[in-house]
């Protein structure tokens, strides 16, 4: 089945399609993420190569968002794909989609790396200035061109950007920096209870917003 999908992918021309449920637009007949994961579980290097081509940009962006260092991010990206290869047998489709599993793994490794490395202090300083200048860190890269793009990223960011900046900031610090509620409270000079409320409300709005997006598309 996977081999047939590979052949079809080579034969058919590219077509532009945009769907929420399939982040990078696959060529018709291209193997699904799940097919690639099954092939990786059977030790097929070609499947890892395809998965890498499909998701290295997303995972690198996530790692960079955590550790803010290009060279370290590249090294970590390589380690993470090696871990995907080594740990593929632990992936279960019943527990979620391959991308979700890879992102969880990449985030954990990136946050571990951040905590271990001496670069932590430098990244902290950079984060401090970012936080002061732009509490809603998700928004700071938006351009006219991006706003015009009606793709998955734009739709998700629309949901996130709909949150009050303080909620965005709390979620950003928790997800991308791995901070606890207490650490966020200390960092932002905010009472612990307020941080908890911001996280709960913000995550619920994003969760509900994503559900609506899936229903619409």
């Amino acid at each position, binding site marked *: 089945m996977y081999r047939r999908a590979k052949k079809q992918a080579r034969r058919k021309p590219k077509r532009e399609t945009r769907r929420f449920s399939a982040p990078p637009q696959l060529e018709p007949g291209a193997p699904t993420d799940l097919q690639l994961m099954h092939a990786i579980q059977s030790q097929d290097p070609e499947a890892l190569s395809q998965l890498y081509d499909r998701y290295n940009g997303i995972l690198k962006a996530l790692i960079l968002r955590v550790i803010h260092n290009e060279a370290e991010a590249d090294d970590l990206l390589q380690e993470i794909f090696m871990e995907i290869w080594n740990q593929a047998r632990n992936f279960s489709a019943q527990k979620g989609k391959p991308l979700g599993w890879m992102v969880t793994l990449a*985030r954990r490794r990136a946050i571990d790396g951040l905590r271990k490395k001496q670069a932590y202090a430098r990244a902290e300083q950079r984060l401090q200035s970012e936080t002061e200048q732009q509490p809603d860190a998700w928004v700071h*890269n938006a351009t006219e061109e991006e706003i015009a793009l009606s793709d998955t990223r734009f739709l998700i960011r629309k949901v996130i950007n709909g949150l009050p900046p303080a909620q965005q900031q709390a979620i950003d610090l*928790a*997800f991308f920096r791995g901070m606890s509620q207490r650490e966020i409270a200390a960092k932002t000079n905010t009472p612990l209870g307020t941080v908890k409320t911001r996280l709960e409300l913000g995550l619920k709005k994003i969760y509900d917003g*994503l559900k609506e997006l899936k229903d619409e598309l």
Partner: protein
Amino acid sequence: MNFEQFQNQSRLYVIGALEPEEVEEFEKARKKFGQKAEDFITKCYALHEAFALSLRPAKASAAIKDRLMSMVRERKVS
């Protein structure tokens, strides 16, 4: 803890933002709600995917893939 509270806690749990003292109570509720709780937690992991997809993809160095694939092939041979 009712199920709505459990749902709120689950979203914090999946991003690792529950405080240690909250985790014990969360785990008790998780047992109490059984499969329904597990299904909801699984759904919450979609948040991870969404946060990653909210970022602009970054370009990795071309050498990374070459190194990765040669490591994988070496390991497969040995």
